[in-house]
């Protein structure tokens, strides 16, 4: 069943968002632009290498994923728009290829390393 859901999800999301099946979907907070299509796989982009014309440092044939994400996120409903600035935790590479729908429902995609601080470090 899990495999079937992953297959269905991939069939749905691949054509629309070029889904990479990372298993921890954050499309809602990145303006429905998949950050895993960033060649550097950044979860908190953009990097400092965006070209003057907005194209990608690595692949000059494509617009920077995060430029698009930032632009599109401004058009999202307020809660999602504000989520753009969230500090997204490191990707759990074990979830590669799994269904983010299942992970969302089970809460698995919210699991972060024990040492990942959820709040801002105390002032110096």
């Amino acid at each position, binding site marked *: 069943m899990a495999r079937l859901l992953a297959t269905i999800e991939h069939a749905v999301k691949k054509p629309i968002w070029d889904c990479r099946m990372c298993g921890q979907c954050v499309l809602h907070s990145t303006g429905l632009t998949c950050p895993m299509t960033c060649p*550097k796989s950044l979860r908190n982009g953009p990097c*400092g290498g*965006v070209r003057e014309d907005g194209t990608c440092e690595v692949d000059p044939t494509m617009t920077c994923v995060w430029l698009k994400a930032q632009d599109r996120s401004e058009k999202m409903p307020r809660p999602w728009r504000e989520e753009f*600035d969230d*500090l997204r935790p490191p990707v759990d590479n074990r979830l590669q290829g799994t269904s983010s729908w299942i992970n969302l429902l089970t809460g698995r995609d919210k699991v972060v390393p*024990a040492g990942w601080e959820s709040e801002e470090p105390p002032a110096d």
Partner: protein
Amino acid sequence: MPNFADLLTSPEPSRPVITAEFPVMDGGGLPEIAAKLACLTPYVDAVNATDNASAHAHVSNVALAIAIQQYGVEPVLQLVCRDKNRLALEADIMGAALHGITAVSCMTGDDVTAGDEPEARRVFDLDAVQLIRVAAGLAKGHYLSGRPIDPAPKLLIGAVENPAAPPHAYRVRRALKKAAAGARFLQLQICYHPDRLAEFTRIGAATGLTPKVALLPSIVLVKGARSLRYMNKRVPGIHVPDELIDRLAAAPDQREAAYQLALEQATHALSLEGVRGLHFIDFRHDDALGRLCSDLGLPTVRSAPEGNALAV
């Protein structure tokens, strides 16, 4: 002599803080490090130990930082996410801290395609913002896994940002995210658009990024128009307007014109709110850095090292 961390975080800065990029090291050994430091040491408070700059392999960042420190200069350990996974990055910070190195600069890094081994596998297990947060965790006494570290390493966490790269209006928000993650200084990428740097610092002050985070704009010392053309074409994120290139190309003395441009940029940067100093990248390797500090009215902070400080 106040250390780098104290200078950067002091509520009432007595003078601008100066850092510089250490030239990349391949061969040459420790004597070459001493020779290169001799050109920088009189003018800087700290020197960045680079981490495979521009995606080219060089002497390791940790080894370089330790060597710099042995000669009596405070290092800033650069950490690039391109080359190492989270385990290796944590190990670098902890390994350097073992030697008393506290200042780190967290960077995502140019892609491997910017280097001379583009066939290499890129890592990017973390991005720079995540690495800042991981470093903050180490400073609080635990690895990313939660496993405790006692005593916790003392760290001054920094990062970089590019005020000139699109999307310009968003750059301060990203800097704020880095600050929220735990960054206390930002070495800003060289910016050939003074209006963009000014806007970045203005918004930074308005949003509370500064003075919480110390800004250190970069100044690159080049010999002439050819270097500007190269950076414009080859360095990701750097854009040099044609008029600046033309200005240098048309000058009767390109070296002097390039120097005057750097002085102009440095003076402008130091005038901006939230700017605590400058970060120098010297591609001239002549007396330009000393001359620039003199023209800016910056003091010579120390004499060049005579030898390995550990021998004392």
